[in-house]
């Protein structure tokens, strides 16, 4: 057993720290949103940050950091632990470490796609030239992805797509949909769906913004009306998309922004050391100390799940169970932490960003609203618990 990073990993962490310091704008701390494990304040999803984010991705790509977790034969460094270090450090600074394209698309393409597709897409993804949005959910198919209705009909060299997606984070600032569509409506559940890459500029696509509970435009509804998708854009085999989604979910669940947990804890600790309530420092209040200690302990637990999941991936294990526990635990903690942080801030906690008296730039207030999304997006807590119980512990389904 060893809980240490290798010397190489430590020096990589230092390199990323330096990168973050050098590349993030000087006023980034003032601007940056991001509640750990929330989906509504993900850095880089807002239109106003698009240009900055696009440039940052190119810079990350230049260093080879967008493909760290990929197998070396596709230009990767074969290290999910390093990938996790990058995400840890970047999320501490509330900066995006990558995109759907690099976190989900790349590793999945590397595993299931044809050589031709790998040659065409992997280098571009690794360079940070393009961004994906995740086209899974539909108005009547959230957690139950096998019941999506969006159809892709075979028509010569193309598929013709009709349907609607929803909760499409970043569809408005991305270049391609990582789309799950029904290609064989008659097939048994889980066997008639296909993943394909759809150019956002294709005729017939309409993107309608949805404002989330935090007042941020992060997700959208997207409508497909006779959209033609070249067959060469199919990822993996036709009708086996569900398998790829399951594979991709493992990568997706690694994204809890573990550094962002540490960051907000550090900020809360600093805050209570300099803030008085009724003439007494909050840091001297036993209840406040107890609450913060409790949060520090839970954040250490999330870190345990996080590093163990990344490490297992590097061992060649598919961390079904662990990635679900990480996702479940991390997002539930996100909500608890937001509640505790609001309790500590007291009445000032209700002041929003931009208010003169808002503590911590109103971030906790925003996080409190955003933390609702974590246990819902990317498979609800209930879905995760079901996976843990049935796939992990072998309990009967019926």
């Amino acid at each position, binding site marked *: 057993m060893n809980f240490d990073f290798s010397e190489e*990993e430590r020096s990589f962490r230092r390199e990323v720290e330096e990168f973050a310091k050098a590349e993030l704008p000087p006023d980034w701390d003032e601007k940056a949103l991001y509640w750990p494990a929330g989906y509504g304040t993900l850095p880089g999803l807002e239109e106003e940050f698009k240009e900055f984010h696009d440039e940052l991705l190119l810079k990350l790509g230049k260093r080879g950091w967008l493909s760290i977790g990929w197998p070396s034969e596709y230009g990767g460094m074969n290290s999910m632990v390093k990938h996790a270090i990058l995400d840890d450090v970047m999320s501490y600074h509330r900066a995006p470490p990558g995109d759907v394209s690099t976190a989900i698309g790349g590793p999945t393409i590397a595993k299931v796609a044809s050589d031709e597709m790998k040659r065409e897409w992997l280098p571009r993804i690794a360079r940070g030239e393009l961004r994906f949005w995740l086209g899974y959910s539909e108005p009547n198919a959230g957690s139950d992805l096998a019941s999506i209705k969006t159809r892709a009909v075979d028509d010569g060299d193309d598929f013709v797509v009709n349907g609607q997606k929803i909760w499409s984070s970043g569809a408005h600032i991305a270049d391609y949909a990582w789309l799950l569509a029904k290609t064989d409506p008659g097939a048994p559940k889980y066997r008639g769906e296909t993943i394909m890459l759809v150019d956002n500029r294709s005729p017939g696509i309409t993107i309608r913004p949805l404002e989330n509970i935090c007042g941020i435009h992060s997700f959208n509804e997207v409508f497909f009306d006779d959209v033609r998708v070249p067959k060469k854009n199919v990822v993996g085999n036709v009708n086996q998309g569900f398998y790829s989604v399951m594979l991709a979910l493992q990568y997706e669940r690694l994204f809890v922004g573990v550094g962002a947990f540490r960051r907000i804890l550090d900020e809360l600790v600093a805050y209570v050391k300099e803030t008085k309530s009724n003439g007494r420092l909050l840091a001297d209040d036993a209840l406040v100390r107890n609450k913060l200690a409790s949060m520090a302990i839970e954040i250490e637990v999330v870190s345990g799940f996080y590093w163990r999941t990344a490490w297992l991936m590097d061992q060649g294990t598919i961390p079904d169970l*662990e990635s679900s526990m990480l996702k479940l635990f991390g997002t539930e903690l996100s909500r608890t932490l937001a509640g505790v942080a609001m309790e500590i801030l007291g009445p000032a906690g209700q002041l929003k960003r931009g208010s003169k008296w808002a503590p911590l730039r109103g971030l906790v207030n925003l996080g409190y609203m955003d933390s609702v999304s974590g246990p819902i997006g990317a498979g609800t807590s209930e879905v995760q618990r079901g996976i843990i119980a049935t796939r992990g512990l072998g309990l009967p389904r019926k």
Partner: protein
Amino acid sequence: MMNFDLTEEQKLLKESARNFLSRECPRDLVRTLEEGKEFPPELWRKMTDLGWTGLIIPGEYGGSGGSFLDLAILFEEIGYHICPGPLFTTVVLGALPVMAWGTPEQKEDILPKIAGGERIMTLAVDEPGAYRRASSITAKASTAGDGFVIDGTKLFVPDADRADLLLCAARTGADEEEITLFIVEKDAPGITITPLQTLAGDRQFEVVFNGVPVKKERILGEPDRAWPIIEDIHRKATVILCAEMIGGAQAVMDMSLEYARERTQFNRPIGSFQAIQHHFANMLADISGSRYLFLKAAWKISEGRDASMDAAMAKARVGEAYRRVTILGHQIFGGIGFTKEHDMYLYHERSMTGDLKFGGADLHRARVAEELGL
């Protein structure tokens, strides 16, 4: 380089401990021990033969020189089978401090006998109304001739009746932390031992010292400077206790799982109901997350690193996690788990008493807060 696996030797230790205990320490035995029956000398001898008493004692003193992490791994299995007996007190509260602070003579005298299973040792620190603070130790050691005499009352002394040696903390100076640790023979004149009736029937005692003579050669560490030693003993003890508790929580989950697969209601195994499945997911996440904390703390101690934060985090979380897991286990077992015929009560008791020992969760969170710089 990160590695979350046990070594081959550790896996073997774990497996052999599990096999041995399920054979030699069934829960029926645990029940009779709770009711006051002696820990079977035969079982103690077998544990000794397996090398458990000498697991972490260096080879030169007759042990096998294992690491603190090895010990934690063994104790997870002991907790799984809630096997009582004086191994914890002797090894964790006795041998470890002697190894760390004993003089060569003390080590030579005590360690081989512990490794050989011929000495039981325990720790007498807590006092009525005093818990884990140097300032509240009132037992006094006064100089007498070229030695000392100890007067005072100690509480919650585990296995005092069976012990040969008591490590006793007594005040030797006026300043708050001027405490000295003495290695006292249990049979010394002036010692009175009275059992305490505890929730888990786990053999804790009141020990009254009335003019108990002790030679100055029997001081462990330096006179007046024992408080950091006591803190260190407690730190290590909390981590091993966490290992025991996680083992217990794992046993509760395993028992409940087996039951949920077999027990049918409404013509279905209850394990197929989502509500029950969610209980299990919560149990597993609680256990796995907590296990990480105590393993990290144990590993740091093995590596000789500062584990203050990790040990406090582990103790603060593991006790409460064990309680949560046990309560969910009860919920799954329903009425049958609420009887003395079922084994759940054995675990339920220990989930609470474990949380209380060596400082409860709030005390350890207070330490975490200090470590956070608050």
